[in-house]
């Protein structure tokens, strides 16, 4: 059963972007407990804010009514001036001024230096959060990223949504 707010958002997206949009309502939450103390854990950053590297990546297809389910891998040492946003569904003001608002690299490097976390995984997985038909993302792309992170010894993923 959709809440009033989700009904309104669904109607707006149908009117302005994609007439067949229907919210994906998940019935349960996946779960894995944190396997070791945070101070011994490798943490990966993920974001749905549409960042990509302009000298290496094709931008997300931000204006496509069907969205873009792909991801971009961004190294944590990437110079900030090489990064751009391709996402048509949020105001970019804060993210353009300070990438740490959506990809908190500086903060997590500090947390690793302080021993609060064990290690910051060196690759960020950047998505573009408007995906009105999410089946490929759910069944193929997100599991691909999860397998990659698990194979590389990541213990927790910190996802900032936009």
């Amino acid at each position, binding site marked *: 059963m959709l809440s009033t707010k989700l009904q309104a958002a669904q109607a707006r997206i149908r009117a302005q972007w994609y007439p067949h949009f229907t919210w994906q309502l998940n*019935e349960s939450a996946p779960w894995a407990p944190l396997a070791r103390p945070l101070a011994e854990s490798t943490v990966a950053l993920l974001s749905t804010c549409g960042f990509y590297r302009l000298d290496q990546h094709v931008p997300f297809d931000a204006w496509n009514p069907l969205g873009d389910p792909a991801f971009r891998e961004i190294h944590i040492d990437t110079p900030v001036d090489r990064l751009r946003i391709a996402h048509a569904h949020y105001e970019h003001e804060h993210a353009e*001024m300070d990438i740490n608002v959506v990809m*908190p690299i500086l*903060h997590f490097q500090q947390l690793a230096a302080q021993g609060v976390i064990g290690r910051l995984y060196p690759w960020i997985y950047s998505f573009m959060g408007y995906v009105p038909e999410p089946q490929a993302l759910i069944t193929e792309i997100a599991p691909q990223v999860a397998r990659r992170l698990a194979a590389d010894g990541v213990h927790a993923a910190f996802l900032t949504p936009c």
Partner: protein
Amino acid sequence: MNRDIVAAVKPPRALYVHFPYGAPLGPAVERDVQRAVIRNALDVLVSATVPGTIVESDVEWPD
């Protein structure tokens, strides 16, 4: 982020903040606010035991 969306998506665990889209960790360059949100979220990571836990942050958007 709309709390209703979080409830519909059902991530394993989530920190809900009363911040606008595009600034999930707080305003640009407001390092103390950003750090506070991140600490809140890491507390949820460490302490949550129930799948789908949503904790509401008390970090406020600065004036």
